[in-house]
C-alpha cells in the first residue's frame, strides 16, 4: 500500500473513533445515566401497570426539576394535555424541543394508566387529583400532609422511599414523623 493511503486510512480510523466517542458522550449527556428495566409492576393491577417502565430521555428530562413521575400514574389523555402545555407547567416554563417530545410522549402513552371510566370534561393533570390517588391515600391525615418533611403530596419520595426506582409498594413506605 502506498504511504499516503496508509496515512489516510489511519487518519480516517481516528476520525471515526472520535466521532463514535462523541455520539456516546452526547447520548450519555442527554439521557442520564440510569437505565432501568421496563418490567411492569405486578402488585397492583390496572392503573399501576407502567409504573416501573423507564426511558432514558424521559428520566433525564422529567427529573430535572422533580421526580420523573411514572407514566402509569396518569391516563394518556392527561399526558397528551400535559406535554402540549409544557410552556405553562404548573406555573413554570418547562418547554422541551420537538426531538425530546417525540420520544417522551409516545413512551408516556404506551405505558399510561387506563382512561377514566366516567367521561370527564378536562383531563386531570395533577396525579394527586386522580380518584385513584385519593383512594390510595385516604387514610393519611391532613396533619401528616402538612409535615414539613413531606411538604407536598407531590413529593412521593418523602414516604415512598423507592419511588424513584418505580416502586410504590406498601412495604417500602416510611411516613416521616
Amino acid at each position, binding site marked *: 500500500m*502506498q504511504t499516503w493511503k496508509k496515512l489516510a486510512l489511519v487518519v480516517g480510523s481516528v476520525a471515526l473513533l472520535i466521532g463514535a466517542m462523541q455520539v456516546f458522550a*452526547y447520548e450519555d449527556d442527554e439521557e442520564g445515566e440510569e437505565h432501568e428495566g421496563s418490567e411492569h409492576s405486578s402488585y397492583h393491577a390496572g392503573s399501576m401497570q407502567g409504573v416501573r417502565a423507564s426511558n432514558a430521555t424521559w428520566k433525564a428530562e422529567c427529573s430535572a426539576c422533580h421526580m420523573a413521575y411514572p407514566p402509569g400514574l396518569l391516563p394518556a389523555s392527561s399526558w397528551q394535555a400535559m406535554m402540549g402545555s409544557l410552556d405553562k407547567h*404548573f406555573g413554570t*416554563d418547562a*418547554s422541551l*424541543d420537538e426531538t425530546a417530545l417525540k420520544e417522551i410522549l409516545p413512551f408516556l402513552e404506551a405505558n399510561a394508566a387506563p382512561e377514566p371510566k366516567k367521561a370527564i370534561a378536562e383531563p386531570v393533570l395533577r396525579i394527586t387529583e386522580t380518584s385513584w390517588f385519593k383512594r390510595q391515600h385516604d387514610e393519611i391525615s391532613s396533619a401528616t400532609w402538612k409535615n414539613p418533611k413531606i*411538604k407536598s403530596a407531590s413529593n412521593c419520595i418523602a414516604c415512598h422511599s423507592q419511588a424513584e426506582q418505580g416502586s410504590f409498594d406498601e412495604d417500602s413506605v416510611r411516613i416521616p414523623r
Partner: protein
Amino acid sequence: MSKITRITQALACVLTLLTTTVHAETPQDFLTTFQTAAKAADANFQGFSVTRGEQFFKTTHGNDWSCSSCHTSNPATVGKHASTGKAIDPLAPAANPERFTSTRKVDKWFKRNCNDVLSRECTALEKGDILTFLMAIK
C-alpha cells in the same frame, strides 16, 4: 498532485469534519456568541459586566423568582428548586465543569428560566452579563 499535497488535503478534510461535529462547547464559546449578538443589537455595546450580571442574577424582574431563588446567591454551591425543593447542581463553571458545554442545554434553560423570571426571553446582553458573572466565580 504530489503525495504531500494529497496528505495535507486529507488531513484538512478530517480536521474540518472534526471541528464541525464537535459537540462539547466551552463557556468562552457561549460568551463569544453572546458578544456577537449583543454587538449586532447595539452598536454602542461596551462589553459585559460582572457587577451587572450579579445584580441581574440576584434581583427579581417583575415576577416572584430571581435566578438566585433556585441557584442561590452563591451559584458555586448546590441550589434548590424554589417550588419542588429538588437539588440543582452548581451553575458556576468553576464548580461544575458540565455547565455551558452544550448549546441544546444552554438554549433550553435560558428559554425556560428567563420566561419564569422575566416573562420574556433574555437579551444577549443579559445572557452575556450573567455568564460573565458566573465565570468570574472561582
